[in-house]
């Protein structure tokens, strides 16, 4: 029950973040959604994710506020064209209806199949020696994924450093 309430809170926060006109408030609202997500992770018994989500959310918030603060913000109107809004809503409605029928075929909420996960739980400790099974998975069973993940962060850092160069071309335009 508290799960649904938190989800509703997140949806509310997201709507506020999308619709409010002041950018700073919008960024803060999305921060609230992220912290709500962190709580949901805690309820869903995922403490690793709760911690990570919390700190990542704080960092994202700082970066976003840095980007928005002290910028003059002329009021930006959304697209006025009614047809576009209408087609967007139509698309989203179709998506949700399709999703509704598709989700019916999933296993019920709270009863996953655990075909592969069973082996992690049963033999994770003895095979890797780590008591935190999530750590055992990300760094041993699926360590290759984590190499990719570390590389993604590396790529992003290199990308940011490349994009923020003041001069792109040596004798260009």
């Amino acid at each position, binding site marked *: 029950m508290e799960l649904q309430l938190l989800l509703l809170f997140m949806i509310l926060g997201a709507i506020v973040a999308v619709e409010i006109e002041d950018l700073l408030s919008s960024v803060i609202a999305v921060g609230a959604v992220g912290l709500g997500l962190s709580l949901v992770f805690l309820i869903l018994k995922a403490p690793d994710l709760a911690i990570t989500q919390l700190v990542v959310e704080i960092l994202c918030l700082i970066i976003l506020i*840095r980007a928005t603060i002290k910028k003059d913000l002329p009021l930006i109107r959304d697209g006025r064209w009614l047809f576009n809004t209408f087609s967007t809503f139509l698309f989203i409605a179709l998506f949700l209806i399709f999703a509704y029928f598709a989700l019916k075929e999933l296993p019920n909420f709270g009863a996953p199949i655990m075909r592969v996960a069973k082996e992690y739980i049963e033999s994770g400790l003895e095979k890797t*020696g780590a008591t935190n099974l999530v750590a055992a998975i990300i760094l041993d069973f699926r*360590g290759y994924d984590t190499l990719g993940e570390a590389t993604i962060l590396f790529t992003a850092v290199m990308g940011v450093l490349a994009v923020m160069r003041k001069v792109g071309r040596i004798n260009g335009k």
Partner: protein
Amino acid sequence: MGNKETGMTLIVKTITRLTVGLILLYGIYIVLHGHLSPGGGFAGGVIIALSFIHLMLAFGKDTALKKLSQTVASVLESLGALMFLSIALLGFSGGYFFFNFFLHKGRPFELFSAGIIPLCNIAISLKVGAGLFAIFAVLVLSKKSGNEK
């Protein structure tokens, strides 16, 4: 958010001086106990980066960059990445890429256990901490020069 190099008010600075070490220590704790308790390299790395960002926000960029300059940060990041890759490569000694090559994985629930997992955590935290700090420093520095224009 003082735009001069001085940073924020005295109250903020004093409290920062007290807490920054604790935050850093907490980050290191989370990294080292990643295989025993929730957390791990990523969360710990982000916390370490946040402690430096905290310093930068409170004292202005110069103080923080004196502690950890941008070049050092990007070198540390590349080193962390290389370390992670070489741990993965060392697995070839056991026959496979990413093989957990410690034969004796130690007793469970102890700090020195679980083979390569703590080592990987340290490498990742180095990478994440230094990388995120570098991103933040670059974003802040560019903002300043953008204002001067």
